[in-house]
């Protein structure tokens, strides 16, 4: 088992690419299992940011001087890398944002001009707060009604109720591709198809899917898709909003400022075309360029290999975890989710487990994972979430499991 998993990827070599994986925490080698919160950054991406400030730094899209052109080319090349990765038809459909939350708010703000009382929007019960709150705000503003696609005990969405909720009143549907708290991979193809049949638009939050699988926005026929670079080996503060060109053209701009205009006078301003209409102000230039570098890095390893390898980690960890008495794992079976284990040990608070694991060098997330409705569903205060990445190893899982047993014995 250990041998086969190591063979899919040369993990030891990959680990050399990540400077932070060499450090210690509380005197122990770092075991980083909080990848669903943010991924670590390979040297290639760090170097790209340094190179930008050492060699390319200039404001983009506005200078006639050479340096500005170099920076602009690098930024637009990154946009093209992102377009290619998600297979969008045109670079006009790739808005570089500050991340998923920003992307969702951009769309929610745009639709506040179109929705009215009597309209309905559907949101799944397993969303991150950032894919709930903007829509609640949108409903408050427009009088539209928010309805919830419930979840089942097995951590999957109740698609029968979804069918019943869909009607010609449904204008928009919001669902994550992968749940951040549980790792469930949602059947977004089916959700998109059915939603389109009633004329509803679909926004898929791809923040948790992007590190593990490559979404093809054309094949999915999704209307909007959002991603944060920092979950896929890129820097924080940058991300993507994909939107179908005709839909983005209809949406009014989100923020006013420089970059997003064609002509300005005090009587009337005309807006720039896509994608710049939604990119007011000087963007996170180095971040955008590094976002491209991060995708290049992950594609060089290969998403198929990453998925296969992470599945082996997940299966191994699930089996080891299930052998500990009192463990309850929340969510779907390994084959229906990404490399996330959300669990509790009977009678022990997740905060206590997380605190003791940290003392032993193991970083996990504890709490409600910004998905309180899921915790309410299971009637728990939170869970311990261990989330794996392609640079994690079987031996790190062994360290985690033995640390967990130690924590359990201290707390029981």
């Amino acid at each position, binding site marked *: 088992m250990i041998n086969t998993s190591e063979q899919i990827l040369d993990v030891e070599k990959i680990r050399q690419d990540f400077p932070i994986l060499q450090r210690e925490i509380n005197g122990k080698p770092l075991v980083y299992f909080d990848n669903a919160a943010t991924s670590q950054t390979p040297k290639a991406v760090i170097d790209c940011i340094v190179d930008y400030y050492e060699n390319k730094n200039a404001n983009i899209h506005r200078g006639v001087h050479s340096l500005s052109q170099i920076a602009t080319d690098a930024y637009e090349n990154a946009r093209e890398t992102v377009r290619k990765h998600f297979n969008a038809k045109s670079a006009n459909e790739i808005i570089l944002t500050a991340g998923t939350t920003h992307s969702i708010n951009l769309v929610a703000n745009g639709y506040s001009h179109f929705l009215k009382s009597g309209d309905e929007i559907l949101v799944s019960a397993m969303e991150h707060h950032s894919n709930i709150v903007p829509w609640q705000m949108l409903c408050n503003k427009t009088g539209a009604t928010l309805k919830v696609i419930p979840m089942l005990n097995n951590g999957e969405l109740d698609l029968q109720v979804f069918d019943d909720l869909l009607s010609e009143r449904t204008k928009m549907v919001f669902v994550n591709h992968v749940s951040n708290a549980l790792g469930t991979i949602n059947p977004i193809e089916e959700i998109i198809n059915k939603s389109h049949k009633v004329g509803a638009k679909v926004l898929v939050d791809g923040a948790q899917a992007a590190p593990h699988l490559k979404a093809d926005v054309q094949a999915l026929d999704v209307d909007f898709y959002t991603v944060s670079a920092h979950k896929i080996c890129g820097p924080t503060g940058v991300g993507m909003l994909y939107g179908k060109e005709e839909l983005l053209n209809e949406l009014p701009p989100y923020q006013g400022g420089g970059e997003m205009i064609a002509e300005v006078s005090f009587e009337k301003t005309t807006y720039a075309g896509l994608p710049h209409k939604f990119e007011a102000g000087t963007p996170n230039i180095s971040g955008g360029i590094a976002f491209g570098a991060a995708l290049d890095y992950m594609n060089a390893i290969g998403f198929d290999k990453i998925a296969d390898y992470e599945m082996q980690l997940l299966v191994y960890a699930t089996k080891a975890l299930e052998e500990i008495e009192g463990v309850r794992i929340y969510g779907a079976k390994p084959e229906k989710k990404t490399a996330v284990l959300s669990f509790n040990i009977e009678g022990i*608070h997740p905060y*206590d487990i997380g605190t003791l694991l940290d003392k032993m060098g193991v970083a996990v997330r504890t709490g409600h994972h910004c998905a309180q409705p899921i915790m309410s569903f299971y009637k728990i205060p939170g869970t311990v979430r261990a989330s794996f990445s392609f640079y994690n190893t079987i031996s790190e899982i062994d360290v985690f499991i033995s640390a967990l047993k130690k924590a359990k014995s201290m707390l029981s």
Partner: protein
Amino acid sequence: MSSIKTKQEDIIEEFSMFDDWMQRYEYMIELGKSLPIIDEKYKTEDNIIKGCQSRVWLYAEMDENQKIEYTADSDAIITKGIIAILIRVFSDEKPEHILEADTDFIDEIGLKEHLSPTRANGLVSMIKQMKMYAIAYNSQQNQA
């Protein structure tokens, strides 16, 4: 030395006997288990301090000697252990002494991280709430 300061010094001395983090935490877990639990009737929404990670309930009463008695609880045992330490220090003290005291001793016993606001375990707000009770009882006394 004030009674609060003496209690803090005692705690620092107790913790200095531990060789490593594990003994420290085992002791805290023990303290957490032995914490006199808050009377169920005070475990109300009014008395809850919501942290993102763990929840804390706190209640305070003034006894006949004009000293404040705190009782508290938490759903996480390590949080409870720290509550037990804080209650030992601040309970059975006069409001004015509670208001003068600080919590620097927590750093000295190696538990500083638990009082970080980013930890979101409710303890920072709990200390604030303990002081609020002291302010309230203090002004009550001054009015009387």
